[in-house]
């Protein structure tokens, strides 16, 4: 696209982004912030290179992969579960309104000597983490229904319908047992289904609701687990489950992947607190306390703030 700067159209307004910020006008201030946003959203060479690599990889396996109708299925699934979304929203709001302390899981392991109490237990798993992870799973693309061929469509619809049934049982019906039954039916009908990743997340959600956390972790940690949508919520939840199971090495790896993104959100808060727990559990008190202080700096009113303060106070009293 050519720039309007050079075309000299009569009546063409002057761009705010072209104005000197020093004019001191409201338009100048707005132009300055727009200009900086414009510069920040200019793709860099590495952005383009990463995209090219992804498209090239996609091109390479295009002929054999079911990805095209996988996208269509994801869209169909979202549409099919649309009625459940409202219920999920209500569920999330209800879980969020519960006191933070009630979401904290009792310590799964004996307390290590000399280390603060609270963070040494299993890192808390806020109740909303599971639905959040599962809801984040379907990734529909726009305009893709055209990608479904005539013979693929009935299969796609059946697969989406089966999985939608599981999500409905889980969200609208709040019946994790029925959801697991629906997922078993899905697995039997589509052992290599295009939505296997989404089905896996739904199963994890159902298992978590039922308190079958070890099975949930096994699913998330399976090396041959195939494609599981790795959102931040899923990753931090897996880290928490690893920590709860005493596998702090794996837990810290997940937490550090979350923290490496540099974002400031719920997943980052949980990862920071979880890493503190693992470090303290491993005897690295200085690093653990550092994480707790960082957590309090970044999330002074966070769900784990009281536990972090208590742990730091204990550490202070126990110091020689």
């Amino acid at each position, binding site marked *: *696209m*050519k*720039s*309007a*700067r050079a*075309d000299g*159209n009569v*009546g*063409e*307004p002057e*761009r705010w*982004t072209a104005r000197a910020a020093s004019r001191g006008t*409201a*338009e100048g201030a*707005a*132009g300055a*912030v*727009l200009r*900086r*946003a*414009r*510069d*920040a*959203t*200019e*793709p*860099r060479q590495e*952005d*383009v290179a990463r*995209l*090219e690599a*992804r*498209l090239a990889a996609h091109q390479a396996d*295009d*002929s054999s992969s079911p990805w*095209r109708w996988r*996208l269509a299925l994801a869209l169909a699934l979202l549409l099919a579960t649309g009625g459940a*979304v409202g219920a999920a*929203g209500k569920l*999330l709001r209800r879980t969020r309104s519960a006191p933070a302390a009630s979401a904290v899981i009792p310590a799964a392991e004996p307390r290590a000597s000399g280390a603060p109490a609270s963070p040494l237990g299993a890192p808390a798993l806020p109740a*909303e983490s599971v639905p*959040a992870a599962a*809801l*984040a799973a379907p*990734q*529909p*693309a*726009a*305009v*893709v229904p*055209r990608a479904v061929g005539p013979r693929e469509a009935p299969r796609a619809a059946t697969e989406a319908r089966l999985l939608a049934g599981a999500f409905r049982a889980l969200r609208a019906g709040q019946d994790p047992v029925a959801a697991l039954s629906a997922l078993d039916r899905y697995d039997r009908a589509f052992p290599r289904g295009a939505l296997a990743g989404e089905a896996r997340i739904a199963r994890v959600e159902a298992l978590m609701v039922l308190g079958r956390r070890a099975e949930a972790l096994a699913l998330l940690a399976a090396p041959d687990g195939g494609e599981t949508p790795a*959102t*931040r*919520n899923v990753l931090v939840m897996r880290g928490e489950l690893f920590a709860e199971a005493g596998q702090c090495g794996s837990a810290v790896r997940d937490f550090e992947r979350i923290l490496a*993104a*540099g*974002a400031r*959100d*719920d*997943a980052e808060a949980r990862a920071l607190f979880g890493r503190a727990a693992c470090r303290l559990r491993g005897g690295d008190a200085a690093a653990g306390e550092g994480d707790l202080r960082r957590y309090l700096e970044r999330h002074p009113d966070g769900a784990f703030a009281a536990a972090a303060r208590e742990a730091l106070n204990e550490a202070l009293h126990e110091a020689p």
Partner: protein
Amino acid sequence: MVLSGDDGAELAPDVDALYREHGRTVLRWVMRLGGPGIDAEDAVHDVFVVAKRRLGAFDGPGKVTTWLFRTTEKVVQAARRKQRLRRWLSLSGEPGAAGISTSNPTPGDALDRRRDVEIVYRILDRLPARQRQILILFEMEEMATEEIGELMGAKGSTVRVWLFRARARFLAEHQRLFSGKDEGP
């Protein structure tokens, strides 16, 4: 550009050519129209998925850039709808995932840039869709109003009227944000 039939394998080289010529532009459109909350890589991927499937249907006489822009626009709209749904469900939008380049000289610069982008999109997201789009195309894409009119199927003079309104709304929201009277969307 030679257009093939419906067979994906035959179409692929043309999509390659399309990407080579316009990939960077589509990425920029996605980043700017989508804002920081959407996954720009995913969206560009989707644009070219659609392009690959529908290239056979493109027979002009319109410009291929116009056709690509409209596809981008639809893909971005879908991504933003999903982002809004996720925000409504408090899933956040995987912050930092896209929209802002990570190659910054210093952490301080990166924070400033992120803040500027967030401010701009916080304001833009309060504008009606058409006004939002026009401001992005005019101020950030630096397109002429006539060019914007071509993309949007409107006359340049009409676009200038829309731009006038969009600017007034942006300015009001910008001032509200910095006057401390902002109470969120």
